[in-house]
């Protein structure tokens, strides 16, 4: 069980280090990673005509 614990700990640390390092590298070396958003191309926000939460497929068909 101790060996399993060590393996789990090391694997977790490796995955975490891989993800965090790449996030930091991306922020450092990849510049201007964004495109124009909805707000920049629309004078008004989205005009919601109708909305319903928690619907099922039968309600959708209607």
């Amino acid at each position, binding site marked *: *069980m*101790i060996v*399993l*614990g*060590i*393996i*789990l*700990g*090391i*694997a*977790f*640390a*490796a*995955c*975490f*280090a*891989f*993800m*965090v*390092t*790449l*996030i*930091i*590298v*991306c922020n*450092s*070396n*990849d*510049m*201007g*990673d*964004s*495109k*124009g*958003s*909805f707000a*920049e*191309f*629309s*004078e*008004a*926000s*989205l*005009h*919601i*005509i*109708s*909305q*319903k*939460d*928690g*619907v*099922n*497929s039968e*309600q*959708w068909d209607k």
Partner: protein
Amino acid sequence: MEIKCPGCGAALVFDAQTGKMQCKYCGSFFTMADIEDQFQKVEQDGVQEPETPIADEPNTVQCNIYACTSCGAELAVNGVESSTFCAYCGQPTIVFSRVSQTLKPEVIIPFRIQKQEAVAAIRKRFNQGFFIPKEVKAFEVDRVHGIYIPHWLFDSYYYDKQLIRGTVGSGKYSRTMYFMREADCRLHNVPLDASMNLDDESSQRLEPYDMRDLRKFEIGYLSGYYSDRYDVSNKDLHELAAKRAMELFDSQMLESCSARSKEIIANKPRISLLKETYALLPAWFMTFRYKDKPYTMLVNGQTGKVVGAVPCDSAKVKLMASLIFLLTSLVSVPLGIYFCLGTSATEKSFFEMLIGIIFAMISMYYAGLKKLEKLQKSETLTASQGMNRYAHERQGEGGDFR
């Protein structure tokens, strides 16, 4: 044709800071109205017609020959050029007949960022990058070109009724929920680049442009910069315009649902393209070399936004990864041992937690892979020969001209 200073006869160039035409020789400034008057006068005198294009021959590129009005030299212009510097005397020569022969741009956003400011913005951004190699930070500028990129600006109306699936709650209380949304919107001036040689991804990353700064096209704005003529028609971009409108619309629709892992599972979209405007938008292309490979960084000529990706300092990356790994291990290994010893292997909760930990690890690994993929894609675009060639050809020095 070249726009000359009414005072001393030297060539005028557009000054991004003042928004006027400047004579570098006598220091005079002229408004666009003054230039338009001068241009009309010259047009009445007669514009020099371009010569007949050279005949097609093997291993040659067909291009038009223009005479430089300043030094009299013959100037070869690429088939997609509408203005260029004279390769011989370096004067900003605007080949207006080229623009008028095709479709004249309706609107333009003039350059607001000057060459030095563009290079300074790149240097500043590079200096902020911890993983950028020192050699890259101390780059020597190979070429800097201010290029007006042709765009089609689309106005559209978009309507959709969507069924969205998402997950709400957490842990044992997590459940799938469906949302119905019906909405519409009007999108204005969504830009799509109309140049076949420039990658769409690169041009879209130059956004946003402040469209309030759009001006009626005046030939004087081109003076001192390179410009490209559209080689993708508005009709060819209809599909892409609809796709872009859909992306913008869908992102807003998904945002309106309070859930995670959201996905549109059914919809009934309707789009109408209302208007298309031919526009020129400004960008700086800066090329530098690293390990004998050219990299082209882009800078939005209006806002100064820097776009591109550069290679990493691998030693620093390895050091950072090792450091994070060691620090995390100091916590995760004892926790792992404690977890395994403290819970009986036969307990149901042990397997549930084990699966949870493995799932978390896979998620982290996947997130890292996605970032790596994105970085590699950006770097490929920056180092692409196509991008370098795009900037290079518009200077009139590319292989096509020799």
